[in-house]
């Protein structure tokens, strides 16, 4: 039967069929997850998509342009705080005279502004680090990420901008066409709870980010980024304006991070500096490296795996230990870190180009083996 199918359908047809099947599967995913695992898991999948967007953004900086960024979560923070500040009663509470009702700007107005602001911060980080590469760049970007987090932590006095460590709560939910996503909706007899609605919104944004990424990868700009990654001197000898293109990579990556952060603030309804720790930057970088640096599908896979793994552990480790020993010996959080470490070492040993590397990287490794 498959042979018959193969003979009927050309390669292009098969690809399209595969794509359609995949799309249907993804569209049904929240329902399947809800039925099989419970509603909490749909929420986890929603968060996983935010991570995928972050990983794809960082992939531009690290994977394409080869600039090691250890403070990437700062741009996520900028996006999140943008919406938190303008879409919550925080301003009304802090400055009742200036903003008696708070700002409560629409999410759709804040989103592009937040993306632009995050992009601006990307340039801000990129400009002084243009001459740095590798380890040195990593150290400066790490510092940048921490500076942003510490600012968020301390900007509650003398002017209360971020409400300090308490964070900003009661952020307005995202509305699409006047419908708040924090409600249950009935569409053609199908009940769509809030997490499902957010799922479809995030899916749309993830697809947009994937589309932009893949167009960038194949563009003149993308090729220039890769040339800079390979050899900066040779790249400028080719007539590439390395300064502008590096800044552009920082800005584009930061914009993706900003978009993801804005969505995060609207989804979670609460932001605090805790969410933007160095560990988060490291996690996003792990997603990129583990999945396959510079390869969109690989990065998506990495993001999905690393976002879901801690949740899987949380739900399996405790019951398992209870059943085996009658008590919890290792808490899932520390086990998670241990497993991460082991997984990273194993992947780097046996699949150094990542779990799902691009064709080019795979070929490179194969030819390495031939050379050996």
């Amino acid at each position, binding site marked *: 039967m498959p042979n018959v199918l193969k003979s009927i359908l050309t390669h292009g047809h098969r690809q399209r069929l595969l794509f359609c099947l995949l799309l249907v599967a993804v569209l049904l995913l929240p329902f399947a997850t809800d039925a099989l695992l419970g509603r909490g898991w749909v929420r986890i999948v929603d968060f996983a998509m935010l991570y995928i967007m972050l990983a794809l953004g960082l992939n531009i900086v690290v994977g394409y342009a080869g600039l090691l960024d250890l403070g990437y979560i700062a741009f996520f923070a900028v996006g999140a705080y943008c919406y938190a500040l303008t879409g919550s009663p925080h301003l009304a509470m802090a400055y009742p005279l200036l903003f008696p009702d708070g700002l409560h700007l629409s999410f759709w107005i804040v989103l592009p502004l937040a993306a632009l602001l995050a992009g601006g911060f990307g340039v801000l980080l990129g400009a002084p680090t243009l001459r740095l590469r590798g380890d040195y760049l990593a150290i400066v970007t790490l510092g940048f990420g921490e500076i942003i987090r510490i600012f968020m932590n301390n900007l509650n006095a003398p002017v209360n901008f971020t409400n300090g460590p308490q964070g900003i709560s009661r952020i307005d939910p995202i509305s699409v066409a006047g419908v708040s996503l924090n409600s249950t909706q009935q569409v053609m007899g199908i009940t769509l709870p809030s997490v499902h609605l957010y799922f479809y919104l995030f899916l749309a944004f993830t697809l947009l980010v994937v589309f932009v990424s893949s167009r960038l990868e194949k563009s003149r700009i993308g090729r220039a980024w890769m040339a800079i990654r390979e050899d900066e001197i*040779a790249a400028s000898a080719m007539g590439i304006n390395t300064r502008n293109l590096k800044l552009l990579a920082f800005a584009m990556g930061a914009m993706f991070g900003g978009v993801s952060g804005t969505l995060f603030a609207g989804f979670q309804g609460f932001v605090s500096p805790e969410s933007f720790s160095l560990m988060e930057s490291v996690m996003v970088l792990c997603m990129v490296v583990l999945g396959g640096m510079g390869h969109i599908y690989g990065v998506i896979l990495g993001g999905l795996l690393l976002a879901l793994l801690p949740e899987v552990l949380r739900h399996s480790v405790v019951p398992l230990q209870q059943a085996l020993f009658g008590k919890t010996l290792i808490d899932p959080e520390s086990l998670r870190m241990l497993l991460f470490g082991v997984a990273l070492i194993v992947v780097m040993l046996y699949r150094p180009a990542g779990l799902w590397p691009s064709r080019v990287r795979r070929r490179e490794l194969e030819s390495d083996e031939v050379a050996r």
Partner: protein
Amino acid sequence: MKCATIPASSPPILERRVNKLLEISGLEVGYGGIHAVKGIDFHIGQGELVALIGSNGAGKTTTLKALAGLIAPVGGQIDYDGRVLNAVPAHQRVSMGIALVPEGRGVFARLTVAENLLMGAYSRRDHAAIDDDLARMYALFPRLVERRDQLAGTLSGGEQQMLAMARALMSRPRLLMLDEPSMGLAPLMVKKIFETIREVAAQGMSILLVEQNARLALQVSSRSYVMEGGSITLSGASADLLGSDAVQRAYLGG
């Protein structure tokens, strides 16, 4: 140090009235206080193949980098085709027709051979002509045809040098600058590379060749400059330099 000129052994002919494509006067380049190039003067005529020879650390590569715009000179002036180049950024010099084949070749290891060649044409927008040039490069370096879809990092040293040259030629330069094209290559490959350099020069390209292999460079070029400790100490027709005692002793092993 005053620059000595080797007296011509052949009867002096009037210096050919060629247009100077590149003229450098008093060029000084330094890295934070240390001057690697201490005020040098030289020129390259239209269609001329000029060699810059000298031992390690003489300042040859630094000179090329300054010409390509990768380092800003501390002093002096670079005139190219009637324009002062000093303040022109590197990426604009490429579209003005200056191409550099960097030391150590600098191929983009994780891009394919074809992608490397396309990067060479990055500064150009004339797509049809780029395709023609691509075909010309494959004709000039048949080895690259078989390797077209291979990653550049997997090529042999000689093939990488061919690729680096082809990539530089893809920008349709008027001045091609080659930094140590013979470095680390097997003798047979060196011969091949130099044959190609001759071929490209014969088509009328102006070439500045930087080499440690003085004998080869002197054989292939028409005029040469000898650099020592950041200054040019000798200059003249390559054939004359090849026969001079000073050059023989210092660079050609007696």
